[in-house]
């Protein structure tokens, strides 16, 4: 059962394309460039947890610089004006949007948590495995969207 509903990198790409065209790159001049995965030295991690019929997490990770650009784009302000709170809120909203969209592919009784944002370090999820990752760069800065599934998810879903 869980194999049929497991989102793929193509699903993440489709969601990301919508987010970029709506908020991060509405003019189509600053696209996300899919490529190698590499963890930023000083980054921001935002996640939402999925619980219920499906257990796991959606994680959005990028460099602080990319988070600053994302906040500026979301809030229509200059990057110099972006506060830490703006970055935190926008990264949380990004995770929320991706998580909400992913939820529609999962079993009906799946719930999305409020976002959790970690500044300066990467979020870790014990007893999970990464099931897909959309990695690459945005404005030459590392940017990644990944999904992590709880190892007991098959048992829960059954």
């Amino acid at each position, binding site marked *: 059962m869980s194999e049929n509903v497991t989102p793929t990198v193509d699903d993440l790409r489709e969601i990301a394309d919508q987010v970029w065209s709506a908020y991060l790159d509405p003019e189509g001049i600053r696209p996300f460039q899919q490529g190698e995965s590499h963890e930023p030295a000083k980054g921001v991690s935002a996640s939402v947890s999925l619980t219920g019929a499906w257990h796991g997490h959606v994680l959005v990770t990028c460099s602080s610089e990319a988070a600053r650009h994302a906040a500026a784009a979301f809030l229509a302000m200059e990057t110099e004006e972006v506060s830490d709170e703006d970055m935190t*809120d926008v990264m949380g909203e990004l995770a929320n949007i991706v998580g*909400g969209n992913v939820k529609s592919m999962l079993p009906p009784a799946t719930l*999305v948590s409020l976002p959790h944002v970690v500044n300066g370090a990467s979020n870790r999820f014990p007893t999970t495995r990464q099931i897909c990752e959309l990695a690459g760069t945005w404005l030459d800065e590392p940017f990644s969207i990944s999904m992590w599934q709880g190892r007991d998810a098959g048992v829960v879903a059954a």
Partner: protein
Amino acid sequence: MKILIADDSRVMRQIVIRTLRQAGFDGHDLVEAADGRQAHDAIVAEKPDLVVSDWNMPEMTGIQVLDAVRAAGNTVPFGFVTSECTPEMQNAAEAAGALFFIIKPFTPERFKEALSTVLG
């Protein structure tokens, strides 16, 4: 017209406000609510002409707010803007009398399409 924007995300409230403007809906009075309870109370106190509401919010969900105001006889035009979209949610929204169901991320064109019947 007075428009109530209900979303627990400050960022999303700002984006909804900007998208309304980009969709050509300028010059309206805007009221904000940061959770479902605030939204419900603002509908009663402020008597908005349109409610644009998130689905998942603390205190009361958007659908609970809609059910509560309809149960009280209030027929204010009410629609959802949400990142979660399942057939069950859309059916519940429709059954409760929601006017539209906009999925995040959205564009000004989607706002124009969904809101033009109310905002002209």
